[in-house]
Structure formats: C-alpha cells, structure tokens
C-alpha cells in the first residue's frame, strides 16, 4: 500500500524510511516515527477495534494516551504479546505484529455486534438487574456467559520474558509534561542551577508545539524554537530529559512514580535492556504541566470510525503528515477546532462545513473560514451520522432557541469534533489537592494544594502558546525560588498564537427521539447519554453511584474523555449545577501500567528471600523434599527410592520411636534475654513462672496477647541467673521480639534487660529417640548425660563433637531427646558428625512432616495451626502452663473477660475416625447432626490430621464448641459425597503419661 493519506513533505516522521508491520496479518507500510494509529490512518484505515459491550466498529478518537477505542494486541516476538496496547502510543518498527481485538471472526464482520441490535435490552445497570434470578441460573448460565463476554483483548499465555527495572531518583524540580508550559518551567528552573527532571509520555518533547508548527516564538518557527530549547536544556548539566515516560502517580511528600518505556519502540532492543523502568522520584518541587485533554461532543452516532477529536486530526496532520480523510466536517463548541479546519483545508483536505453549536462565533474565524470556501453553520447541531464501518455523512440541523430545525446531510469521510478541553489534573488530584469549578473556563481548576507543587499552563485553564509559556516560566521560577535559588522570569514573544474560548455543553440538541439515540460518552464501555439519565431516574444521586451503575469512566482511559460530559449530563438530569454534583475521585495510575513495571526486580526467586539453614545443603544432597515455612525453606521429608510422602514419613516416624532421628531445628526463633531484670521481664511477658526456675533448667513458655489469646510458645532455658535462651516458633520470631521490645521500651523502661535476636547465630540439631543418649554420650565433653544428672528439661553449656554447644534435653516428639545448639558456622560439621556417629544406632534424618506427626501423637500444639488468634490457654488445654501465683502477666486480666470464661467456647480435642484408615482433611468442618438441612450449623473444624504410624491409624485434632464436654461423642464431618464419623477424645494419643521421657 502506498500511504494514500500521507502528505509528502509534511510531519516529523521520516518519510524516506518506510517501516512495515502487520495489522491482522496484512502488511502495512508506515514511516519511521509513526505510531500504529498514524500509520493505519496514512493508509486510510480508521476501523481499529470493536467496543466492549455492543461490539460497535470503532476508529481512533485521539492521538494520545487517552485513547479509548484504538486498543490493539501487539506481538514483539515469542512470549511478548500485550493486549490493549493503545495504537496511538505504540511506535511502529519492522516486523511488529498488531492485531485488532474484541471481534470474532473478523474486525469488519463481528458476531458479537448482535449486542448492538439488542442494545435497548442492555441498559445501564443491566448486570445488576438481569442476572438476579432464578438463582439456579447463576452457575450454569449467567456466569459462563459473563465470563465469555468479559475482558478486553486476550491475555498473554506465556510467562513474561522481559526484564523490568526500577530506580530511585532525587531532584529539586520535577516537571511533568514537556509542552510549552513544561519547557518554559524547566528552562527557568534549569537556568537557576536547580537539578531538574523533565518528563513527557510522548516519544518526542514539545507537546502542543508538535501539532502547531505555524506559531512563531522569539522570531523562530515553533519547531526551531523547540529544537533550540531542547538543545539548551540538554546543555545544562543539572537537567535530565526523559521521553516515553509517564508520570503514573503523585504520592506523599512529592514522590512521583514514573514509568519509562525503554524498548517497546525498538525493532531490536539491546541485549539485557529492560522493557520498562519504574522511577520513584522524590522532588523538592513539582511542576505539573500536563496540558488539557479535548472533550468529544455527545450526539447520535458520534462513535463511527472517522469521527474523531479535532485536535487529534491536527496532530496527525502536523506531527505525522497524515490527513484523516478527504472530506472532513468539523463540529465544535470551541474556537480551537476552527484552526484545525483551516490547517486541513490548507493541506488539501476538503472541509465542506464547520458546525458550531454556539450562536455567536468569532467574526474573524468565520471570515477566514469563508475565505477558504468552508460553509459556516453557527447555531447548528449534529443529530446523526451514517456509514457502517466509516462515517459517510453527517446530519446537521439549525437550532433556534429550543427548537431544532430540519436536518440536511453533508457527505464526509471524517467528522472532527471538539467539545472544549479538560485541564489534565489527575496527578494533582492524587495529592488530594482540591478542584474548584471555574464558570468562565467551564472546567474544574486547581484550588487548594497539599504538596509543594505548581500547576502551569492549560492545567490552570489558560489557553494559547503565549499564555502557556509565560505561566510555565512563572511556575519554574517559583519552584526554583522556593528551593532558595535565584531565578528570573523568562519572557517570550509569540506570533500567530491561537487563542480562543468555547462553551461547555451536554448532549447536543436533536429533533429525533432521544431514547433511540446512541450518543456515546464513554466509548470503550459503550455508555451513552441516555444511560446516564436512566441512572439518575433510577435513583442514583451521587456521581460516584452514577459512575458505577453505568460504568462511565471505568474503562482503560479512566474517564479522560468521558468524565466531564458524564458530569454535565448527570447534573442536568439532577437539576443541579456541575460543581454541586462534583467529580469522581482520580486515583493512580494516570495511564494503564504493566504489572511488570510495578513488580520490577521482585519476581521469580527475587520475589522474596529464601532463608536456608546451615544444614540445607546436606538435606538437598540427600534428596529432601522442601516446604516453605515463613521465609525459610525446610526439609519436609527425605524420600528413599520410590517412596511417596506417606511412606517416607511412616519410615521416619518409626525410626524416631524405635531408634533415633535427626532433625534440623535451626529455624526455631531464638532470643537472648539478658540483664539483672531478665527473670522479672519474662515473668511479666509469659504466663509461666520464671523467678524460681534454676539455672540449668528449662520450661515450656506460653505467650499471650493482652487480649488473652495465644500468640506464641517455645522452650526457654535459664543458663545463668541473668541469662535466658528463649525459643519461639519459626514464624513468630520477629513478632515475638517486636512485642518484647514494645513492652520493654514503652511499658517497663525501668527494667534492665537486653534483647538480642540469635535465631541465625545458632544451628540446632534435634536428636530424638530411644537411642539418643547412646548416640550423644561419646560426643559430649564436660557433662554427665545420665537421667539423674541431666534430666528432662535440663540445659547446659558444654562441648559436643568438639564444638561449643548449648545442649537442651527437650522433646517435641515424646521420645528421649536433645537439641544441640552450636554456632551456625559449625552447624553442618556437627550434623555430619552426628550422622556418622548415629550409623550404628539406626539414625534417620526426618523432616517437618514427621515432626508434625510425632508432636500431634503427643497432643503438642502448633501455634498458628491448632490456634488461630482466638484460642486461649484454656481452649487449648494449656491451663497448666499458667503461673497460678502470679499477680500479673501479659493477657492475664483478659482470661477473666466474660467471653473467655463463658461456656461453649471452642476447645482443642482429639478426633478418632470411625474408619481408622480415613485421614481427615485439615480445615474440614464438623457438625453434630449430619441430617440437618443445609446450611448446617458448624461446631468446629479439624486443625491437624495425620496418619499415625505408631498407632497404625489416623489421628486428628480439632477445635470444637464445648469440645472437652463432648469426649466420647461421635461427631460428623460432611465431605463432598459422603459424611465421615469421628469420636471425640483427648489430645494425647501416644504415651499420655510421658513414660518414654523418663529414661
């Protein structure tokens, strides 16, 4: 194709450098510097997509990031598919593959467009009204239908192979938007010596100047001035310019998030280059110079391909050298579109008429139009368009007062609309800066600021290049001065400026039945003027409700085109003024942002840290299967040969109960509590008594929250009078230390105690089983390991296998057991020596799964599994762990709260299934009467459930209402298709008297 709509010699694209890409499989030629949209338009292609709800054919509406219609899928190679790329933003390169979306089988003929015929049956709030009944239809009919129809574009199916980077950046002045106002601001601040960052989301800086080459600044053409200005900015060492960089959010204390598109525009990106880079900028001052976004006009058929914003046509003409049609009619409520008409006419586009809804139009504009052979239709309205896949004609009618006269058709292949301009204040609104309605500007303008920022140019409702330059320079100077720099105010001599004004309108008046009109406000979501009025009729009063009921402004452009039109129509329907109705809330991001950019480096193995114990490598070399526990990875079991988990765990359990097992307990949280008041401190923190615990002894410690619920537990050893070795659960270590620090620093600062996290300082090997002492005795120096000298719950410092050690005689298995703590650097060596020494004693390495089974057989709880933050010591059967003589400890008072002492609380009990082979599912709900109607009254749930190799049957623990009073009762566990029966028992399944510890 030969780009019939490209005007030779015009535009900033390189017409000598053709670029070929594909659109729906067909090769399209554009020029270097084109976007997908401009290249398609150069080839006369307006039809770029289908709308979301009615599947109406749609063309490009805008030329910027606010584009609601021209969303396409782009493929940049294997795995690099992106849906909903805005055709107006994606730059083309050879072999880029572009596909239209939301259509089947093809863009020109789409089955889903049937929705358009039935549009009257799909009004606002359709989903809320229609899919309510019958209830049984939800699963089989409604949900599948909605799911099939939902979503825009198709999701990528492969993992994203691209890299995403992120950076922090500090600067004195951040200028967002590099149009005339932003450039002037950056110049003023940069010349003062301030460090300046100037960002723009387009591929080139200049903003409006790129679309207005005929304006002259300081005696130069606009583009020459632009080039000179950019050259000066580049020459300033403290100024950084960033293109293709969108400011996505404005956060507290002048932090602005930027998303920089690094490689999407490159045919062959450099190896290893990130696709996008997220910048977190902390700026002393921020200048928002984001300009304004043109508003569409609202009339029947305003969505046909070929109907677009006048400013977009001007951008396509000047920046890309593309005319959007051969016969373009302009319909406007603002002077700016007149200039577009003049530019098009002079570029050889036939402009039959300018339709202006205003009764009075500036005489100079009217005269100029007539001199170019353009018919001036002031006080006219547009009541419809024709054409299927492209606009073919427009119906225009005269308006006299409230009366709309008869229509006449004007043939056209492009209809350019302008409903005025909306100051782009999204970022300002992110800061909770307030907006005030300015009747003269017909727009919301910035009012009260909350951050150190300046708003410049069209964002303040100013119009024209001269005004923007002057205002930008002022803002840049003000920002520099606020930072204590000396800055002068630049002045600019502007000729041939295009100033002007306009009026704000609701939907255009029509002589036809408004209820049949498809006058779109939100193009992507297919929200019409009629939908807004219906929402108000049906009782929506708040603009936030109108928005959600109609989905107006909820498309990917987040209302950039539709918000003000929706507001004007809603206000009219409510009989209120626009400011009384107000705006919906703007939230980040300003424009659609990839998850990749937000995730940055935090993906795959960098998503979170993996903590490994000193023994991890040994476990890995033995083929251990790992599981994540908090941030640790722990060996879950050590399968041998073809063993599955159940077989491996059964073997490991047998070994511990009959010989000896070796377990890596290094992940246990450890806190060294030291100081003269250490015992007093623990006395106050834990439920148990500590004052009388002798050095060389340890005790199970139970930690409650002030609300009386179990927070953590662990064995605490007293090494000397003023030194305690506190252990916590693996996941609770940081929480417990934080809680201890809190009480120590803020409640009891008088206590002389020091807390040190020693979790990673010690490697811990647990030796458990009847052969434990036999294994250990030859390795231990300086300690008599006999039961009399070193009984259960003793602790000592000694030497084990030549390493300095803290040796605990403790058991989480119910067997004779020792836990050997050695400095972490000796952990692996100790482990290997134990392993070697254990060979003659039947030593077996076991993992966390076996540890869980063994402790459950003894009824030992796992905090966080058998408790859930609502379980008291009484509920868990741990009343024995409370120091009865203690006057106070954290949570003691709460144990007398009415709810805590009430009957019927959920209590931890054992469950034995009627069928001993049946292992219950953890989390399964428990009912008393299985014959009651659904939904049944659930009285508890299974917290722990395992196959017990020692008992040759399944065991379980459960939290059950009034559980201990139900001992002996049979309860029921309904599962899909069947109901299981289980008897309530105590929780100690193996050796309830603890005889096996006394050896």
């Amino acid at each position: 194709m030969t780009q019939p709509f490209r005007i030779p010699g015009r535009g900033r694209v390189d017409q000598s450098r053709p670029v070929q890409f594909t659109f729906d499989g067909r090769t399209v030629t554009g020029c270097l510097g084109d976007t997908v949209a401009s290249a398609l338009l150069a080839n006369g292609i307006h039809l770029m997509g289908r709308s979301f709800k009615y599947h109406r054919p749609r063309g490009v509406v805008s030329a910027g990031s606010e584009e609601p219609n021209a969303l396409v899928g782009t493929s940049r190679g294997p795995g690099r598919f992106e849906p909903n790329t805005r055709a107006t933003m994606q730059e083309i390169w050879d072999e880029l593959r572009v596909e239209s979306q939301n259509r089947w089988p093809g863009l020109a003929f789409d089955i889903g467009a049937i929705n358009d015929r039935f549009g009257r049956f799909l009004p606002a709030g359709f989903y809320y009204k229609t899919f309510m009944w019958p209830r049984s239809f939800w699963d089989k009919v409604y949900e599948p239908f909605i799911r099939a129809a939902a979503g825009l574009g198709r999701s990528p199916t492969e993992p994203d192979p691209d890299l995403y980077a992120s950076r922090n950046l500090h600067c004195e002045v951040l200028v967002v938007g590099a149009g005339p106002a932003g450039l002037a601001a950056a110049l003023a601040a940069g010349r003062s010596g301030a460090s300046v960052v100037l960002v723009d989301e387009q591929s080139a800086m200049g903003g409006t100047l790129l679309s207005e080459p005929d304006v002259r600044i300081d005696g130069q053409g606009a583009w020459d001035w632009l080039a000179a200005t950019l050259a000066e900015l580049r020459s300033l060492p403290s100024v950084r310019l960033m293109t293709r960089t969108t400011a996505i959010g404005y956060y507290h204390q002048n932090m602005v998030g930027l998303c920089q598109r690094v490689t999407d525009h490159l045919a062959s990106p450099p190896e290893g280059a990130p696709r996008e880079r997220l910048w977190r900028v902390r700026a002393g001052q921020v200048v928002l110079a984001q300009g304004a976004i043109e508003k569409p006009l609202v009339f029947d058929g305003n969505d046909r391909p070929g109907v677009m914003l006048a400013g977009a046509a001007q951008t396509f003409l000047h920046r890309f050298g593309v005319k959007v049609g051969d016969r373009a009619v302009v319909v406007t409520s603002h002077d700016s579109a007149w200039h577009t008409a003049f530019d098009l006419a002079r570029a050889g586009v036939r402009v039959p008429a300018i339709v202006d809804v205003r009764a009075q139009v500036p005489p100079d504009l009217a005269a100029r139009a007539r001199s170019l052979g353009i018919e001036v239709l002031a006080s006219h309205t547009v009541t419809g368009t024709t054409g299927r896949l492209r606009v073919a004609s427009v119906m225009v009618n005269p308006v006299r007062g409230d009366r709309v006269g008869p229509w006449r058709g004007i043939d056209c292949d492009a209809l350019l609309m302008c409903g005025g301009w909306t100051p782009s204040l999204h970022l300002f609104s992110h800061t909770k800066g307030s907006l005030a309605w300015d009747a003269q500007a017909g727009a919301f303008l910035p009012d009260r600021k909350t951050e150190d920022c300046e708003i410049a140019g069209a964002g303040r409702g100013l119009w024209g290049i001269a005004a923007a330059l002057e205002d930008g320079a002022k803002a840049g100077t003000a920002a520099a001065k606020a930072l204590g720099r000396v800055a002068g105010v630049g002045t600019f001599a502007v000729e041939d400026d295009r100033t002007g004004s306009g009026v704000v309108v609701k939907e255009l008046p029509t002589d036809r039945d408004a209820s049949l009109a498809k006058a779109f406000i939100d193009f992507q979501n297919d929200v019409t003027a009629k939908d807004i009025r219906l929402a108000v009729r049906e009782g929506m009063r708040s603009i936030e409700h109108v928005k959600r009921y109609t989905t107006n402004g909820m498309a990917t452009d987040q209302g950039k085109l539709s918000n003000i039109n929706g507001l004007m129509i809603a206000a009219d329907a409510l009989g209120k003024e626009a400011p009384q109705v107000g705006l919906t809330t703007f939230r980040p991001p300003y424009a659609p942002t990839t998850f990749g950019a937000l995730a940055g480096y935090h993906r795959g193995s960098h998503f979170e840290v993996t903590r490994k114990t000193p023994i991890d490598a040994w476990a890995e070399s033995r083929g251990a299967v790992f599981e994540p526990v908090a941030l640790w990875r722990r060996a879950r079991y050590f399968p041998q040969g073809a063993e599955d988990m159940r077989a491996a765990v059964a073997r490991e359990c047998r070994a511990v109960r009959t010989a000896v097992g070796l377990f890596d307990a290094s992940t246990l949280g450890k806190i060294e509590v030291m100081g003269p008041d250490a015992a007093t401190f623990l006395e106050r923190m834990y439920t148990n008594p500590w004052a009388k615990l002798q050095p060389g002894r340890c005790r199970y410690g139970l930690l409650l929250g002030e609300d009386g619920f179990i927070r953590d537990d662990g064995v605490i050893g007293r090494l000397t009078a003023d030194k305690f070795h506190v252990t916590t659960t693996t996941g609770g270590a940081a929480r417990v230390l934080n809680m201890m620090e809190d009480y120590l620093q803020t409640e009891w600062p008088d206590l002389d105690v020091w807390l040190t996290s020693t979790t990673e300082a010690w490697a811990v090997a647990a030796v458990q089983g009847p052969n434990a002492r036999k294994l250990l005795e030859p390795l231990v120096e300086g300690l008599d390991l006999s039961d009399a000298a070193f009984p259960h719950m003793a602790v000592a410092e000694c030497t084990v296998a030549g390493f300095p050690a803290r040796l605990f005689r403790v058991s989480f298995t119910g067997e004779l057991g020792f836990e050997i703590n050695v400095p972490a650097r000796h952990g692996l060596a100790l482990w290997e020596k134990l392993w070697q020494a254990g060979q003659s004693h039947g030593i077996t390495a076991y993992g966390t799964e076996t540890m869980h089974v063994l402790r459950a057989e003894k009824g030992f709880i796992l905090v966080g599994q058998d408790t859930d933050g609502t379980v008291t010591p009484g509920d868990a059967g741990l009343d024995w762990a409370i120091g009865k003589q203690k006057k106070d400890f954290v949570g003691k008072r709460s144990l007398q709260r009415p709810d805590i002492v009430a009957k019927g609380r959920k209590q931890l009990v054992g469950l034995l299934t009627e069928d001993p082979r049946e292992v219950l599912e953890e989390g399964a709900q428990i009912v008393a009467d299985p014959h009651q109607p659904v939904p049944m009254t659930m009285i508890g749930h299974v917290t722990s459930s395992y196959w017990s190799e020692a008992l040759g049957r399944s065991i379980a623990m459960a939290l059950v209402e009034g559980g201990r009073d139900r001992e002996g009762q049979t309860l029921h566990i309904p599962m899909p298709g069947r109901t299981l029966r289980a008897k309530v028992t105590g929780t100690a399944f193996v050796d309830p008297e603890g005889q096996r510890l006394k050896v």
Partner: protein
Amino acid sequence: MLLIHCPYCDETLPEPEFAYAGEAHIARPADPMALTDEEWRDFLFIRSNPRGTHYERWRHVHGCGRFFNAIRDTVSDKFAMTYRAGEPRPNLDALKEAAE
C-alpha cells in the same frame, strides 16, 4: 511513601524503615486485675480513631529499633511532629501558636 523523622536517630527516612504501632499514650494499667470488665475492655479495644490529628506510635524497626510517638493527620497523612516515647503528649495548638 512517607518520609518520617526518627526522634532518636534525628534523621528523616523513608517509610519502609518504619512500622506503625497503634495509638499512642495508652499506658498499660499498673494493676490490670483491679480493673472492671468495662475498664479493661476500653483499654484493650477502644481507640479514638479520629478524623484529623492522631497521636500514634511508630517503630524505627529497620533502623535503631526504638518505638516513638508521632502526631499525624489521618486525612492528609501528614506528620505534624514526632517525639520520643515517654515524653508527654504535646499540645498541638500551643505548638501551632508558637510556630506562628
């Protein structure tokens, strides 16, 4: 992301170094067992939850580790000041007057 001044380090540092720790100036009763159920409930659960000036605790958890107090506006999220744990509740109006 907020910037927070640690009154112990005397430095203004990014929010990820800090952890929020609830409302400030709620001292644990000296003798909880002497309290009625209602008094204990109020201590445990009842918080001021204001719209506006809030006295609250933060911990410089990834810095010096100290708990300190702050005055923050819950609408704007802005900190008026931070001060050390144990110092009396500052009178914000007096501070404002003094500043003016």
